[in-house]
């Protein structure tokens, strides 16, 4: 029995598929508004193009090169010859098809694809946005339907601008009240994954709402949606509001006021900023009290192995990693710097801002000085160490605390290394002590303001 009132994801998919209404499990053929590939999925798509061109299917032009953008993030700086050749292949691809939005390593703004999606305002509220990467879910925080696809599906989208979706059911996570200052969005999403498991969101949408989300910054919301992937969700989403619009407008317009682009929260008669609906609009509703949340870690080897930092085992750490699309946005760095200011790290600590624009802001506001003074190394944006590919991988038996999103066996290096997932504040506090540490142990709770990042 279809519901009369559609929830946010249903409204977006109805609009994109030209229907007046859709219900969970409907299969719809939706128009895609934006599409992204990076230096792993891009070469994969090129291969698919070559294969289907051999079958006589035309691949000489894309559906709309202006709606496609390309990131270089997984294997930059090039670790060896093959990655260097993949980057060259990507450049050849973007120039052949006339893709103007190619964010190149070493040429101004570039960074992790999901970070670029918000730093460069590449995706708008209400969009259907697909990317050749599983963490494409991140960008749903801007109020878009955002999900990852495999190479073949991406190739299809680039040629046709549309794709089939089965309309997902929506699980609604309500956060009541503002997060305490020492608790970050990362702690909240790890707690949720611990509660529902790594397949708890399978084939479904995870939507976040409630007063805690309204008060949360856009970057905090991005952290939540980023890790819906670790719960197996099709996508994550937050209702777009004035905060979303302001965040994007700040990034679309020059600081000097030379341009005045506006972000619309509605499209084709659908207002995506409408308040979240009644319980009956969702397959399940989960309630959390912000005041009851605390810093957590996810122990090896699964993001669902969460436990409060206060109950974490006493392990000797070898490294603290503050990087990735999950944990190296500007506010993540700011939070880590709040802990590291005036302190010294006791373990190898690496800070890799997730995009050059963030790197620049961190330089201008003095965060980089705080990290360097503490003894940490600051590196260029890359997915390298997060996926264990290069730029600081773990050796056998090494233990890492990390602001990233996965701690599968061997994810960050040797198959017998171990990673604890944590918030930037917990990773920074742990860098100071060399063991898993509550941020309040380093900076007294009395000095915390309201949280929400």
């Amino acid at each position, binding site marked *: 029995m279809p519901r009369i009132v559609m929830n946010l994801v249903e409204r977006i998919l109805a609009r994109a598929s030209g229907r007046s209404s859709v219900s969970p499990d409907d299969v719809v053929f939706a128009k895609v508004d934006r599409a992204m590939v990076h230096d792993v999925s891009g070469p*994969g798509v090129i291969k698919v193009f070559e294969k289907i061109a051999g079958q006589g299917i035309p691949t000489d032009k894309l559906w709309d090169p202006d709606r496609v953008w390309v990131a270089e993030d997984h294997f930059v700086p090039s670790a060896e010859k093959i990655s260097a050749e993949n980057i060259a292949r990507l450049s050849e691809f973007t120039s052949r098809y006339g893709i103007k939005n190619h964010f190149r390593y070493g040429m101004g703004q570039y960074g992790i694809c999901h970070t670029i999606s918000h730093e460069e305002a590449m995706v708008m509220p209400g969009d259907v946005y697909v990317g050749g990467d599983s963490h494409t879910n991140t960008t749903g925080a801007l109020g878009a339907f955002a999900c990852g696809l*495999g190479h*073949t*599906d991406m190739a*299809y989208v680039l040629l046709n601008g549309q794709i089939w979706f089965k309309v997902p059911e929506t699980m609604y996570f309500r956060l009541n009240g503002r997060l305490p200052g020492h608790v970050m969005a990362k702690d909240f999403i790890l707690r949720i994954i611990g509660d529902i498991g790594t397949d708890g969101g399978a084939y479904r949408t995870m939507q976040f709402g409630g007063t805690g989300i309204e008060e949360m910054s856009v970057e905090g919301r991005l952290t939540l949606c980023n890790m819906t992937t670790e719960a197996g969700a099709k996508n994550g989403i937050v209702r777009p509001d004035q905060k979303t619009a302001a965040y994007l407008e700040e990034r679309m317009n020059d600081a000097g006021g030379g341009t005045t682009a506006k972000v619309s929260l509605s499209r084709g008669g659908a207002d995506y900023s409408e308040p979240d609906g009644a319980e009956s609009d969702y397959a399940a509703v989960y309630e959390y009290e912000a005041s009851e949340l605390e810093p957590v870690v996810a122990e090896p080897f699964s993001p669902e192995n969460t436990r409060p930092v206060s109950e974490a085992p006493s392990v000797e750490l070898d490294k603290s990693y503050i990087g990735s699309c999950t944990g190296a946005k500007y506010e993540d760095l700011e939070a880590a710097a709040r802990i590291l200011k005036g302190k010294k790290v006791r373990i190898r600590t690496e800070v890799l801002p997730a995009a050059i624009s963030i790197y620049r802001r961190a330089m201008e506001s003095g965060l980089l000085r705080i990290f360097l003074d503490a003894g940490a190394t600051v590196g260029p944006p890359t997915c390298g160490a997060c996926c264990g590919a290069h730029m600081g991988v773990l050796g056998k038996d090494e233990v890492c605390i990390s602001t990233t999103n996965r701690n599968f066996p061997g994810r960050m290096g040797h198959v017998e290394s171990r990673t604890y997932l944590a918030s930037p504040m917990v990773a920074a506090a742990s860098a100071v002590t060399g063991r898993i540490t509550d941020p309040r142990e380093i900076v007294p709770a009395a000095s915390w303001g309201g949280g929400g990042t």
Partner: protein
Amino acid sequence: MEPFRTVRSVATPLDKINVDTDQIVPKQFLKLVQRSGFGRYLFYDWRYERGEGGSDGASVVPRPDFVLNDPRYKGSAILVTGENFGCGSSREHAVWALADYGFRAVIAPSFADIFYNNCFKNGVLPVTLERGEVRGMLKFGGDIEVDLEAGEVRMYSPGDPAAPPRVARFEIEPHRRTVLLEGLDEIAQTLKYEKEISEFEKRSGPTNGAIPPLSPDKPLGA
């Protein structure tokens, strides 16, 4: 693509839950883009021990305790495994590796979404069965037959191959079933519906039209 109708072989039991695509194909092989030959990297870190001085396959030795190295399962075309198979990274290389190794079907209580979709693009059938049924298959050891047309998985008793098999039923969405039965790929499949799609377009108009274009001329790093 080779049409998928019926596959019968001994089933390889991989008794693990949440097997992620990092385990199916480790990251060091992601930069390779040829679609063939990935079978040798399948479950690489579980399958091989590194010999001294070897990093990318120079001197690896098979781990005798890993199921793919067990001679009983040589030539197997069916993998049986636990919940949430294929979670993690969206890398399509994971399915390329399974297919190239020779697996035509994977049976599990549940699959991760992107992996599940990728299977159909590469001629691999993901079969979702009740957890209890899959647990039984993990311990089974006999031949299993996956019949897509009938929507059945049949387990033939190893002791008495002539005895009637135990049958489990599974469901696959109709369009995906067609894709595999006819050996189509998604693109060929969609071309079959070209008329319907263009009518839909006429009806709904350009829904993309109202969106402001991206601004490629914006200064980089601004």
